[in-house]
Protein backbone atom coordinates (compact mmCIF):
# COMPACT_ATOMS: atom_id res chain seq x y z
CA UNK A 1 0.00 0.00 0.00
CA UNK A 2 1.05 3.56 -0.53
CA UNK A 3 0.95 6.52 1.81
CA UNK A 4 -2.14 8.61 1.24
CA UNK A 5 -1.64 12.34 1.55
CA UNK A 6 -4.76 14.49 1.81
CA UNK A 7 -4.54 18.13 0.82
CA UNK A 8 -7.24 20.79 0.32
CA UNK A 9 -8.93 20.41 -3.05
CA UNK A 10 -8.87 24.07 -4.02
CA UNK A 11 -8.18 27.66 -3.16
CA UNK A 12 -5.43 29.49 -1.31
CA UNK A 13 -4.96 26.70 1.20
CA UNK A 14 -4.13 24.29 -1.66
CA UNK A 15 -1.77 26.77 -3.37
CA UNK A 16 0.07 27.44 -0.11
CA UNK A 17 0.33 23.73 0.62
CA UNK A 18 1.84 23.07 -2.81
CA UNK A 19 4.26 25.99 -2.25
CA UNK A 20 5.24 24.61 1.12
CA UNK A 21 6.08 21.21 -0.36
CA UNK A 22 8.00 22.89 -3.21
CA UNK A 23 10.15 24.71 -0.64
CA UNK A 24 11.03 21.28 0.72
CA UNK A 25 11.95 19.84 -2.66
CA UNK A 26 8.72 17.92 -3.18
CA UNK A 27 6.52 18.55 -6.17
CA UNK A 28 2.81 18.21 -5.57
CA UNK A 29 0.85 18.84 -8.71
CA UNK A 30 -2.64 18.58 -10.08
CA UNK A 31 -3.09 16.31 -13.10
CA UNK A 32 -5.74 16.36 -15.78
CA UNK A 33 -7.96 19.41 -16.17
CA UNK A 34 -8.29 22.19 -13.59
CA UNK A 35 -11.62 20.80 -12.57
CA UNK A 36 -10.53 17.23 -12.11
CA UNK A 37 -9.67 16.31 -8.53
CA UNK A 38 -6.53 14.33 -9.25
CA UNK A 39 -2.87 14.90 -8.66
CA UNK A 40 0.51 13.38 -7.98
CA UNK A 41 3.56 13.76 -5.79
CA UNK A 42 7.05 13.78 -7.28
CA UNK A 43 10.16 13.41 -5.18
CA UNK A 44 8.82 10.84 -2.72
CA UNK A 45 7.90 7.31 -3.79
CA UNK A 46 4.77 5.43 -2.86
CA UNK A 47 2.58 8.46 -2.27
CA UNK A 48 -0.99 8.77 -3.42
CA UNK A 49 -2.39 12.29 -3.46
CA UNK A 50 -6.00 12.72 -2.33
CA UNK A 51 -7.72 16.05 -2.92
CA UNK A 52 -10.34 16.73 -0.28
CA UNK A 53 -12.44 19.58 1.01
CA UNK A 54 -10.49 21.02 3.96
CA UNK A 55 -13.49 20.32 6.19
CA UNK A 56 -13.41 16.61 5.28
CA UNK A 57 -9.75 16.09 6.08
CA UNK A 58 -10.21 15.68 9.87
CA UNK A 59 -12.83 12.99 9.27
CA UNK A 60 -10.63 11.13 6.80
CA UNK A 61 -7.70 11.27 9.24
CA UNK A 62 -9.90 9.98 12.04
CA UNK A 63 -11.12 7.11 9.87
CA UNK A 64 -7.55 6.28 8.89
CA UNK A 65 -8.35 6.56 5.19
CA UNK A 66 -5.45 8.99 4.76
CA UNK A 67 -2.08 8.82 6.53
CA UNK A 68 -1.23 12.50 6.31
CA UNK A 69 -3.48 15.48 5.88
CA UNK A 70 -3.22 19.25 5.78
CA UNK A 71 -5.98 21.13 7.54
CA UNK A 72 -6.54 23.84 10.13
CA UNK A 73 -5.97 23.18 13.82
CA UNK A 74 -9.40 24.74 14.39
CA UNK A 75 -11.16 22.04 12.36
CA UNK A 76 -9.32 19.18 14.03
CA UNK A 77 -10.03 20.46 17.53
CA UNK A 78 -13.66 21.21 16.71
CA UNK A 79 -14.46 17.96 14.95
CA UNK A 80 -12.45 15.48 17.00
CA UNK A 81 -13.07 15.11 20.71
CA UNK A 82 -9.80 13.82 22.20
CA UNK A 83 -8.06 14.71 18.95
CA UNK A 84 -4.59 13.97 20.28
CA UNK A 85 -5.53 10.28 20.62
CA UNK A 86 -6.44 10.18 16.94
CA UNK A 87 -3.92 12.36 15.15
CA UNK A 88 -0.41 13.67 15.73
CA UNK A 89 0.59 17.21 14.87
CA UNK A 90 3.55 16.75 12.52
CA UNK A 91 4.29 20.37 11.70
CA UNK A 92 2.67 23.78 11.86
CA UNK A 93 2.94 24.98 8.28
CA UNK A 94 3.06 28.72 8.94
CA UNK A 95 0.14 29.78 6.75
CA UNK A 96 -3.62 29.81 6.87
CA UNK A 97 -3.47 31.73 10.16
CA UNK A 98 -6.88 32.35 11.66
CA UNK A 99 -8.10 33.13 15.15
CA UNK A 100 -11.33 31.86 16.61
CA UNK A 101 -12.63 34.84 18.58
CA UNK A 102 -15.71 36.08 20.39
CA UNK A 103 -16.98 39.41 19.10
CA UNK A 104 -19.77 41.71 20.24
CA UNK A 105 -21.37 44.81 18.68
CA UNK A 106 -19.30 48.03 18.86
CA UNK A 107 -22.19 49.71 20.60
CA UNK A 108 -21.82 47.45 23.65
CA UNK A 109 -19.36 49.84 25.28
CA UNK A 110 -19.90 48.07 28.60
CA UNK A 111 -18.69 44.71 27.28
CA UNK A 112 -14.96 44.36 26.64
CA UNK A 113 -14.10 41.12 28.44
CA UNK A 114 -15.56 37.63 28.82
CA UNK A 115 -16.43 38.66 32.39
CA UNK A 116 -18.56 41.50 30.98
CA UNK A 117 -20.16 39.11 28.48
CA UNK A 118 -21.21 36.86 31.34
CA UNK A 119 -22.74 39.76 33.27
CA UNK A 120 -24.46 41.07 30.13
CA UNK A 121 -25.85 37.59 29.46
CA UNK A 122 -27.41 37.46 32.94
CA UNK A 123 -29.03 40.84 32.43
CA UNK A 124 -30.10 39.98 28.88
CA UNK A 125 -31.80 36.78 30.00
CA UNK A 126 -33.66 38.64 32.75
CA UNK A 127 -34.77 41.37 30.33
CA UNK A 128 -35.68 39.22 27.33
CA UNK A 129 -36.66 35.90 28.85
CA UNK A 130 -34.19 33.83 26.85
CA UNK A 131 -30.47 33.18 26.91
CA UNK A 132 -28.11 35.51 25.05
CA UNK A 133 -27.44 33.99 21.64
CA UNK A 134 -23.93 33.51 20.27
CA UNK A 135 -23.80 32.52 16.59
CA UNK A 136 -21.05 30.13 15.57
CA UNK A 137 -20.18 27.02 13.64
CA UNK A 138 -17.53 26.01 16.20
CA UNK A 139 -19.94 24.70 18.80
CA UNK A 140 -17.55 22.37 20.61
CA UNK A 141 -14.65 24.82 20.89
CA UNK A 142 -16.82 27.76 21.92
CA UNK A 143 -18.80 25.75 24.46
CA UNK A 144 -15.66 24.33 26.05
CA UNK A 145 -14.09 27.77 26.23
CA UNK A 146 -17.10 29.47 27.78
CA UNK A 147 -17.69 26.57 30.13
CA UNK A 148 -14.05 26.75 31.27
CA UNK A 149 -14.43 30.48 31.83
CA UNK A 150 -17.59 29.89 33.88
CA UNK A 151 -19.93 31.85 31.63
CA UNK A 152 -23.65 31.23 32.10
CA UNK A 153 -26.96 32.29 30.56
CA UNK A 154 -25.86 32.04 26.94
CA UNK A 155 -26.86 29.72 24.11
CA UNK A 156 -25.13 28.84 20.89
CA UNK A 157 -27.04 29.20 17.65
CA UNK A 158 -25.75 27.55 14.52
CA UNK A 159 -24.40 29.71 11.74
CA UNK A 160 -22.59 28.03 8.89
CA UNK A 161 -21.73 31.21 7.01
CA UNK A 162 -22.00 35.01 7.02
CA UNK A 163 -21.89 34.77 10.80
CA UNK A 164 -20.92 38.45 11.10
CA UNK A 165 -24.37 39.36 9.78
CA UNK A 166 -26.36 37.53 12.42
CA UNK A 167 -26.33 40.39 14.93
CA UNK A 168 -27.73 42.83 12.39
CA UNK A 169 -30.31 40.25 11.37
CA UNK A 170 -31.36 39.84 15.02
CA UNK A 171 -30.70 36.10 15.02
CA UNK A 172 -27.86 36.43 17.55
CA UNK A 173 -26.51 38.98 20.02
CA UNK A 174 -22.82 38.07 19.66
CA UNK A 175 -20.69 35.81 17.49
CA UNK A 176 -17.75 33.43 17.73
CA UNK A 177 -15.99 33.04 14.40
CA UNK A 178 -12.70 32.66 12.60
CA UNK A 179 -10.93 35.85 11.58
CA UNK A 180 -7.53 36.50 10.09
CA UNK A 181 -7.39 40.30 9.86
CA UNK A 182 -10.57 41.32 11.68
CA UNK A 183 -11.67 43.39 8.67
CA UNK A 184 -15.00 41.63 8.18
CA UNK A 185 -15.78 41.96 11.87
CA UNK A 186 -15.03 45.67 11.85
CA UNK A 187 -17.02 46.22 8.65
CA UNK A 188 -20.00 44.67 10.41
CA UNK A 189 -19.68 46.83 13.51
CA UNK A 190 -18.28 44.04 15.69
CA UNK A 191 -15.42 44.14 18.15
CA UNK A 192 -13.31 41.28 19.54
CA UNK A 193 -13.36 40.89 23.32
CA UNK A 194 -9.96 41.64 24.84
CA UNK A 195 -9.76 38.11 26.25
CA UNK A 196 -12.03 36.55 23.63
CA UNK A 197 -9.37 34.58 21.77
CA UNK A 198 -10.47 30.95 21.86
CA UNK A 199 -7.90 29.40 19.56
CA UNK A 200 -5.06 30.46 17.27
CA UNK A 201 -5.29 28.23 14.25
CA UNK A 202 -3.04 27.63 11.27
CA UNK A 203 -2.63 25.08 8.52
CA UNK A 204 -1.04 22.00 10.04
CA UNK A 205 0.26 18.67 8.80
CA UNK A 206 -1.43 15.92 10.75
CA UNK A 207 -0.59 12.22 10.83
CA UNK A 208 -3.41 9.75 11.43
CA UNK A 209 -2.95 7.30 14.28
CA UNK A 210 -5.82 5.27 12.87
CA UNK A 211 -4.27 4.66 9.44
CA UNK A 212 -2.42 1.48 8.68
CA UNK A 213 1.25 2.37 8.66
CA UNK A 214 2.64 -0.59 6.69
CA UNK A 215 6.15 -0.83 5.29
CA UNK A 216 5.32 1.09 2.11
CA UNK A 217 3.62 3.91 4.03
CA UNK A 218 6.51 4.11 6.49
CA UNK A 219 9.05 4.22 3.70
CA UNK A 220 7.12 7.06 2.06
CA UNK A 221 7.04 8.80 5.47
CA UNK A 222 10.83 8.41 5.53
CA UNK A 223 11.00 10.21 2.18
CA UNK A 224 8.98 13.13 3.51
CA UNK A 225 10.87 13.13 6.79
CA UNK A 226 14.24 13.47 5.04
CA UNK A 227 13.10 16.45 2.98
CA UNK A 228 11.03 18.16 5.64
CA UNK A 229 13.14 17.42 8.69
CA UNK A 230 10.46 15.35 10.44
CA UNK A 231 11.07 12.68 13.04
CA UNK A 232 11.93 9.13 12.02
CA UNK A 233 8.45 7.90 12.89
CA UNK A 234 5.12 9.65 12.36
CA UNK A 235 4.24 9.56 16.11
Amino acid at each position, binding site marked *: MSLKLGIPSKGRLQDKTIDWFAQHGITVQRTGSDREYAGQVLGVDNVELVLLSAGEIPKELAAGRIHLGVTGTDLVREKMPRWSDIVAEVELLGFGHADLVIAVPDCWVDVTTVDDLDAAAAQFRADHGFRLRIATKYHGLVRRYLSGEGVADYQLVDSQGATEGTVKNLTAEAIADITSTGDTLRAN*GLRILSDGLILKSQATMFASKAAEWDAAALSAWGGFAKNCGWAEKPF
Partner: protein
Amino acid sequence: MKNDRRARIKEVADRLSAGFVSAGALPVETDSLLPADVLLDLYGEDIRARAYVTHDPLQGEQMLRPDFTVPIVQRHMSEGAEPARYTYNGNVWRKQSGGRPAEFTQVGYELFDRTDPAGADAEVFAMFSGMLAGYPLKVTTGDMGILLAAVDGLKTTDRRRAALRRHVWRPVRFVRLLERYGGMTPPPETRTALLAQVAERGAETVLEQAGTPQGLRSEQEVLARIAVLQQDCAAAPVSAEEVQMLEQVLALKDTSSAALETLRDMAASFPALKAPADAMEDRLKAMAARRVDVDTLPFEVSFGRTSMEYYDGFVFGFTAPDRTDLPVVASGGRYDALTRVLGQGRSIAAVGGVIRPEALVAVQEGAL
Protein backbone atom coordinates in the same frame (compact mmCIF):
# COMPACT_ATOMS: atom_id res chain seq x y z
CA MET B 1 -21.28 -12.77 27.86
CA LYS B 2 -22.77 -9.43 26.93
CA ASN B 3 -26.27 -10.83 27.36
CA ASP B 4 -25.34 -12.25 30.75
CA ARG B 5 -24.17 -8.86 31.84
CA ARG B 6 -27.33 -7.17 30.61
CA ALA B 7 -29.41 -9.69 32.48
CA ARG B 8 -27.42 -9.04 35.64
CA ILE B 9 -27.82 -5.28 35.26
CA LYS B 10 -31.55 -5.70 34.77
CA GLU B 11 -31.77 -7.95 37.79
CA VAL B 12 -29.99 -5.38 39.97
CA ALA B 13 -32.14 -2.56 38.56
CA ASP B 14 -35.34 -4.47 39.20
CA ARG B 15 -34.29 -5.36 42.73
CA LEU B 16 -33.50 -1.71 43.52
CA SER B 17 -36.76 -0.63 41.95
CA ALA B 18 -38.71 -3.16 44.01
CA GLY B 19 -36.98 -1.81 47.12
CA PHE B 20 -38.18 1.72 46.37
CA VAL B 21 -41.69 0.48 45.63
CA SER B 22 -41.87 -1.43 48.90
CA ALA B 23 -40.81 1.78 50.67
CA GLY B 24 -43.98 3.36 49.33
CA ALA B 25 -42.87 4.93 46.04
CA LEU B 26 -45.17 5.03 43.04
CA PRO B 27 -43.47 3.60 39.94
CA VAL B 28 -43.64 6.07 37.04
CA GLU B 29 -42.74 5.98 33.37
CA THR B 30 -41.79 8.99 31.27
CA ASP B 31 -41.22 9.62 27.56
CA SER B 32 -37.75 8.87 26.23
CA LEU B 33 -37.89 11.69 23.72
CA LEU B 34 -38.41 15.04 25.45
CA PRO B 35 -38.91 18.55 24.07
CA ALA B 36 -35.42 20.07 24.15
CA ASP B 37 -36.38 23.65 24.93
CA VAL B 38 -37.25 23.10 28.61
CA LEU B 39 -34.06 21.17 29.29
CA LEU B 40 -31.89 23.62 27.37
CA ASP B 41 -33.42 26.59 29.15
CA LEU B 42 -32.92 24.89 32.50
CA TYR B 43 -29.42 23.50 32.11
CA GLY B 44 -27.99 25.75 29.42
CA GLU B 45 -25.40 24.88 26.81
CA ASP B 46 -23.70 22.32 29.06
CA ILE B 47 -26.55 19.88 28.52
CA ARG B 48 -26.19 20.19 24.75
CA ALA B 49 -22.64 18.90 25.09
CA ARG B 50 -23.87 15.92 27.09
CA ALA B 51 -27.27 15.03 25.69
CA TYR B 52 -28.39 13.80 22.28
CA VAL B 53 -30.39 16.48 20.56
CA THR B 54 -32.28 15.73 17.40
CA HIS B 55 -34.48 17.79 15.17
CA ASP B 56 -38.03 17.07 14.17
CA PRO B 57 -39.47 19.16 11.33
CA LEU B 58 -42.78 19.59 13.17
CA GLN B 59 -41.93 19.25 16.87
CA GLY B 60 -38.68 21.20 16.77
CA GLU B 61 -35.67 20.15 18.80
CA GLN B 62 -36.08 16.95 20.79
CA MET B 63 -33.74 15.46 23.35
CA LEU B 64 -33.18 11.86 24.31
CA ARG B 65 -33.93 11.75 28.04
CA PRO B 66 -30.68 12.73 29.82
CA ASP B 67 -32.24 12.16 33.25
CA PHE B 68 -35.63 11.46 34.80
CA THR B 69 -35.78 14.36 37.21
CA VAL B 70 -37.22 16.98 34.90
CA PRO B 71 -40.07 14.91 33.41
CA ILE B 72 -40.97 13.63 36.88
CA VAL B 73 -41.03 17.12 38.42
CA GLN B 74 -43.17 18.33 35.52
CA ARG B 75 -45.56 15.45 35.94
CA HIS B 76 -45.77 15.98 39.69
CA MET B 77 -46.37 19.71 39.33
CA SER B 78 -49.22 19.19 36.89
CA GLU B 79 -51.04 16.37 38.66
CA GLY B 80 -49.39 15.30 41.90
CA ALA B 81 -50.64 15.60 45.45
CA GLU B 82 -48.21 15.93 48.36
CA PRO B 83 -46.40 14.33 49.93
CA ALA B 84 -45.47 12.12 47.01
CA ARG B 85 -42.83 9.46 46.44
CA TYR B 86 -41.92 8.29 42.95
CA THR B 87 -39.54 5.73 41.60
CA TYR B 88 -38.36 5.07 38.05
CA ASN B 89 -36.27 2.46 36.33
CA GLY B 90 -35.21 3.04 32.76
CA ASN B 91 -32.58 4.14 30.29
CA VAL B 92 -31.01 7.54 29.83
CA TRP B 93 -28.62 8.68 27.13
CA ARG B 94 -25.58 10.88 27.53
CA LYS B 95 -22.51 11.46 25.39
CA GLN B 96 -19.47 10.06 27.18
CA SER B 97 -15.92 11.21 26.73
CA GLY B 98 -14.24 8.29 28.49
CA GLY B 99 -15.49 5.58 26.17
CA ARG B 100 -18.29 4.51 28.53
CA PRO B 101 -21.60 3.41 26.99
CA ALA B 102 -23.81 6.36 26.12
CA GLU B 103 -26.93 4.42 27.04
CA PHE B 104 -27.30 3.33 30.63
CA THR B 105 -29.89 2.55 33.26
CA GLN B 106 -30.96 4.78 36.11
CA VAL B 107 -33.06 3.69 39.03
CA GLY B 108 -34.17 6.59 41.15
CA TYR B 109 -36.33 7.83 43.95
CA GLU B 110 -37.85 11.30 44.27
CA LEU B 111 -39.62 12.64 47.34
CA PHE B 112 -41.80 15.76 47.29
CA ASP B 113 -42.64 16.93 50.80
CA ARG B 114 -42.58 20.50 52.06
CA THR B 115 -43.48 19.81 55.69
CA ASP B 116 -40.26 18.29 56.96
CA PRO B 117 -37.13 18.96 54.86
CA ALA B 118 -34.72 17.44 57.40
CA GLY B 119 -36.85 14.29 57.61
CA ALA B 120 -37.12 14.06 53.83
CA ASP B 121 -33.33 14.46 53.36
CA ALA B 122 -32.72 11.79 55.99
CA GLU B 123 -35.31 9.44 54.52
CA VAL B 124 -33.76 9.56 51.05
CA PHE B 125 -30.19 9.26 52.28
CA ALA B 126 -30.97 6.40 54.67
CA MET B 127 -32.78 4.55 51.92
CA PHE B 128 -29.85 4.83 49.48
CA SER B 129 -27.37 4.04 52.21
CA GLY B 130 -29.36 0.92 53.14
CA MET B 131 -29.71 -0.30 49.58
CA LEU B 132 -26.02 0.16 48.86
CA ALA B 133 -24.82 -1.39 52.12
CA GLY B 134 -22.59 -4.33 51.38
CA TYR B 135 -21.00 -2.77 48.30
CA PRO B 136 -17.44 -1.42 48.70
CA LEU B 137 -18.38 2.23 48.19
CA LYS B 138 -17.20 5.51 49.61
CA VAL B 139 -19.85 7.99 50.62
CA THR B 140 -19.62 11.77 50.74
CA THR B 141 -22.25 14.29 51.76
CA GLY B 142 -22.48 18.04 51.44
CA ASP B 143 -24.89 20.92 51.63
CA MET B 144 -25.06 23.61 48.97
CA GLY B 145 -27.36 25.59 51.27
CA ILE B 146 -24.42 26.51 53.53
CA LEU B 147 -22.46 28.28 50.80
CA LEU B 148 -25.61 29.95 49.48
CA ALA B 149 -26.47 31.22 52.95
CA ALA B 150 -22.91 32.45 53.48
CA VAL B 151 -23.14 34.43 50.22
CA ASP B 152 -26.53 35.83 51.17
CA GLY B 153 -25.09 37.00 54.46
CA LEU B 154 -22.26 39.06 52.94
CA LYS B 155 -22.37 42.76 53.83
CA THR B 156 -22.21 44.03 50.28
CA THR B 157 -24.54 45.14 47.50
CA ASP B 158 -27.52 43.04 46.39
CA ARG B 159 -26.00 42.82 42.93
CA ARG B 160 -22.73 41.39 44.20
CA ARG B 161 -24.56 38.84 46.30
CA ALA B 162 -26.72 37.89 43.31
CA ALA B 163 -23.67 37.59 41.04
CA LEU B 164 -21.86 35.32 43.52
CA ARG B 165 -25.01 33.27 44.05
CA ARG B 166 -25.42 32.81 40.33
CA HIS B 167 -21.89 31.40 40.09
CA VAL B 168 -21.87 29.19 43.16
CA TRP B 169 -21.83 26.22 40.75
CA ARG B 170 -18.94 27.64 38.66
CA PRO B 171 -15.95 27.81 41.03
CA VAL B 172 -13.63 29.50 38.52
CA ARG B 173 -15.81 32.53 38.08
CA PHE B 174 -16.94 32.52 41.70
CA VAL B 175 -13.33 32.94 42.85
CA ARG B 176 -12.64 35.64 40.27
CA LEU B 177 -15.70 37.58 41.35
CA LEU B 178 -14.86 37.20 45.02
CA GLU B 179 -11.30 38.41 44.43
CA ARG B 180 -12.62 41.44 42.59
CA TYR B 181 -15.28 42.23 45.17
CA GLY B 182 -12.77 41.76 47.96
CA GLY B 183 -10.41 44.23 46.29
CA MET B 184 -7.70 41.59 45.84
CA THR B 185 -7.68 42.06 42.07
CA PRO B 186 -8.34 45.41 40.38
CA PRO B 187 -11.21 45.79 37.92
CA PRO B 188 -10.24 45.19 34.26
CA GLU B 189 -8.40 48.18 32.74
CA THR B 190 -11.02 48.48 30.04
CA ARG B 191 -13.71 48.96 32.67
CA THR B 192 -11.75 51.65 34.50
CA ALA B 193 -11.18 53.39 31.16
CA LEU B 194 -14.88 53.22 30.28
CA LEU B 195 -15.94 54.65 33.62
CA ALA B 196 -13.41 57.49 33.24
CA GLN B 197 -14.86 58.31 29.80
CA VAL B 198 -18.37 58.20 31.19
CA ALA B 199 -17.39 60.53 34.03
CA GLU B 200 -15.89 62.94 31.54
CA ARG B 201 -18.42 62.93 28.73
CA GLY B 202 -21.54 61.24 30.04
CA ALA B 203 -22.71 57.71 29.26
CA GLU B 204 -24.98 58.75 26.39
CA THR B 205 -22.19 60.56 24.53
CA VAL B 206 -19.82 57.62 24.99
CA LEU B 207 -22.47 55.34 23.58
CA GLU B 208 -23.22 57.63 20.61
CA GLN B 209 -19.55 57.75 19.69
CA ALA B 210 -19.21 53.98 19.80
CA GLY B 211 -20.93 53.29 16.50
CA THR B 212 -24.33 52.53 15.07
CA PRO B 213 -26.55 50.60 17.42
CA GLN B 214 -27.32 47.09 16.22
CA GLY B 215 -28.81 43.92 17.59
CA LEU B 216 -31.48 43.08 20.10
CA ARG B 217 -29.60 44.31 23.17
CA SER B 218 -30.79 47.91 23.30
CA GLU B 219 -29.00 51.16 24.17
CA GLN B 220 -31.11 51.30 27.35
CA GLU B 221 -29.71 47.95 28.37
CA VAL B 222 -26.16 49.15 27.80
CA LEU B 223 -26.85 52.35 29.77
CA ALA B 224 -28.42 50.33 32.56
CA ARG B 225 -25.32 48.18 32.86
CA ILE B 226 -23.04 51.23 32.84
CA ALA B 227 -25.05 52.52 35.81
CA VAL B 228 -24.55 49.15 37.51
CA LEU B 229 -20.80 49.32 36.86
CA GLN B 230 -20.67 52.83 38.35
CA GLN B 231 -22.47 51.67 41.48
CA ASP B 232 -20.22 48.66 41.76
CA CYS B 233 -17.12 50.81 41.35
CA ALA B 234 -18.32 53.03 44.21
CA ALA B 235 -19.18 50.12 46.52
CA ALA B 236 -16.84 49.30 49.39
CA PRO B 237 -14.93 46.03 49.06
CA VAL B 238 -16.17 42.91 50.78
CA SER B 239 -14.24 42.83 54.06
CA ALA B 240 -11.19 40.62 54.50
CA GLU B 241 -12.97 38.83 57.38
CA GLU B 242 -15.91 37.96 55.17
CA VAL B 243 -13.70 36.76 52.31
CA GLN B 244 -11.82 34.61 54.80
CA MET B 245 -15.10 33.30 56.21
CA LEU B 246 -16.22 32.27 52.71
CA GLU B 247 -12.91 30.56 52.10
CA GLN B 248 -13.20 28.71 55.40
CA VAL B 249 -16.74 27.64 54.57
CA LEU B 250 -15.62 26.39 51.15
CA ALA B 251 -12.75 24.43 52.67
CA LEU B 252 -14.82 22.84 55.47
CA LYS B 253 -14.36 19.07 55.26
CA ASP B 254 -14.81 16.77 58.22
CA THR B 255 -17.12 14.19 59.68
CA SER B 256 -20.70 15.43 59.72
CA SER B 257 -20.93 16.03 63.46
CA ALA B 258 -17.51 17.71 63.64
CA ALA B 259 -18.38 19.89 60.60
CA LEU B 260 -21.54 20.99 62.39
CA GLU B 261 -19.46 22.02 65.43
CA THR B 262 -17.18 24.13 63.22
CA LEU B 263 -20.16 25.69 61.51
CA ARG B 264 -21.66 26.57 64.91
CA ASP B 265 -18.39 28.24 65.94
CA MET B 266 -18.33 30.25 62.72
CA ALA B 267 -21.97 31.25 63.14
CA ALA B 268 -20.99 33.04 66.36
CA SER B 269 -19.17 35.64 64.22
CA PHE B 270 -21.30 35.29 61.07
CA PRO B 271 -24.97 35.04 62.00
CA ALA B 272 -25.92 34.15 58.41
CA LEU B 273 -24.51 30.69 59.09
CA LYS B 274 -26.90 30.06 61.98
CA ALA B 275 -29.86 29.04 59.80
CA PRO B 276 -27.92 26.47 57.72
CA ALA B 277 -26.28 25.16 60.91
CA ASP B 278 -29.74 24.69 62.45
CA ALA B 279 -30.93 22.94 59.30
CA MET B 280 -27.88 20.70 59.35
CA GLU B 281 -28.43 19.86 63.02
CA ASP B 282 -32.06 18.91 62.30
CA ARG B 283 -30.94 16.76 59.40
CA LEU B 284 -28.22 15.00 61.39
CA LYS B 285 -30.74 14.27 64.15
CA ALA B 286 -33.18 12.86 61.60
CA MET B 287 -30.38 10.80 60.04
CA ALA B 288 -29.24 9.50 63.42
CA ALA B 289 -32.85 8.49 64.13
CA ARG B 290 -32.61 6.40 60.98
CA ARG B 291 -29.44 4.80 62.30
CA VAL B 292 -27.00 6.71 60.10
CA ASP B 293 -23.72 7.16 61.98
CA VAL B 294 -23.26 10.93 61.66
CA ASP B 295 -20.09 10.82 63.79
CA THR B 296 -18.27 9.10 60.93
CA LEU B 297 -20.29 10.23 57.89
CA PRO B 298 -17.97 12.39 55.71
CA PHE B 299 -19.13 15.92 54.95
CA GLU B 300 -17.70 18.53 52.55
CA VAL B 301 -19.27 21.95 51.97
CA SER B 302 -17.89 22.07 48.41
CA PHE B 303 -19.08 18.58 47.51
CA GLY B 304 -21.31 18.57 44.47
CA ARG B 305 -20.43 22.11 43.55
CA THR B 306 -19.43 21.36 40.00
CA SER B 307 -21.00 18.06 39.14
CA MET B 308 -24.52 18.57 40.43
CA GLU B 309 -25.52 22.00 39.28
CA TYR B 310 -29.18 21.97 40.15
CA TYR B 311 -28.84 20.86 43.76
CA ASP B 312 -29.19 23.69 46.27
CA GLY B 313 -29.32 21.88 49.62
CA PHE B 314 -28.23 18.54 51.02
CA VAL B 315 -26.24 16.43 48.52
CA PHE B 316 -24.70 12.97 48.62
CA GLY B 317 -22.66 10.69 46.41
CA PHE B 318 -21.49 7.09 46.50
CA THR B 319 -18.34 6.30 44.52
CA ALA B 320 -16.17 3.24 44.08
CA PRO B 321 -12.70 3.99 45.48
CA ASP B 322 -9.82 3.06 43.14
CA ARG B 323 -12.23 2.75 40.24
CA THR B 324 -11.62 5.94 38.28
CA ASP B 325 -13.02 4.12 35.23
CA LEU B 326 -16.47 4.13 36.81
CA PRO B 327 -18.90 7.02 37.07
CA VAL B 328 -20.47 7.98 40.39
CA VAL B 329 -22.42 4.88 41.44
CA ALA B 330 -25.22 6.79 43.14
CA SER B 331 -25.91 10.44 43.84
CA GLY B 332 -28.69 12.72 44.91
CA GLY B 333 -29.79 15.71 46.85
CA ARG B 334 -32.26 18.51 47.35
CA TYR B 335 -33.27 20.55 44.31
CA ASP B 336 -35.94 23.03 45.37
CA ALA B 337 -34.50 25.69 43.01
CA LEU B 338 -35.02 23.49 39.97
CA THR B 339 -38.71 23.10 40.77
CA ARG B 340 -38.94 26.89 41.11
CA VAL B 341 -37.58 27.35 37.58
CA LEU B 342 -39.78 24.61 36.13
CA GLY B 343 -42.85 25.81 38.03
CA GLN B 344 -42.38 29.42 36.85
CA GLY B 345 -42.68 30.82 40.34
CA ARG B 346 -44.47 27.89 41.91
CA SER B 347 -42.07 25.66 43.75
CA ILE B 348 -42.05 22.43 45.68
CA ALA B 349 -39.63 20.95 48.13
CA ALA B 350 -37.92 18.08 46.36
CA VAL B 351 -35.18 15.64 47.25
CA GLY B 352 -34.16 12.54 45.38
CA GLY B 353 -31.39 10.39 44.09
CA VAL B 354 -30.35 7.95 41.43
CA ILE B 355 -28.40 4.70 41.26
CA ARG B 356 -26.58 3.42 38.19
CA PRO B 357 -27.01 -0.36 38.15
CA GLU B 358 -24.26 -0.71 35.48
CA ALA B 359 -21.74 0.83 37.84
CA LEU B 360 -22.99 -1.28 40.71
CA VAL B 361 -22.55 -4.48 38.69
CA ALA B 362 -19.06 -3.35 37.65
CA VAL B 363 -18.17 -2.74 41.31
CA GLN B 364 -19.42 -6.21 42.17
CA GLU B 365 -17.40 -7.79 39.37
CA GLY B 366 -14.30 -5.93 40.49
CA ALA B 367 -14.81 -7.08 44.05
CA LEU B 368 -15.20 -10.77 43.11
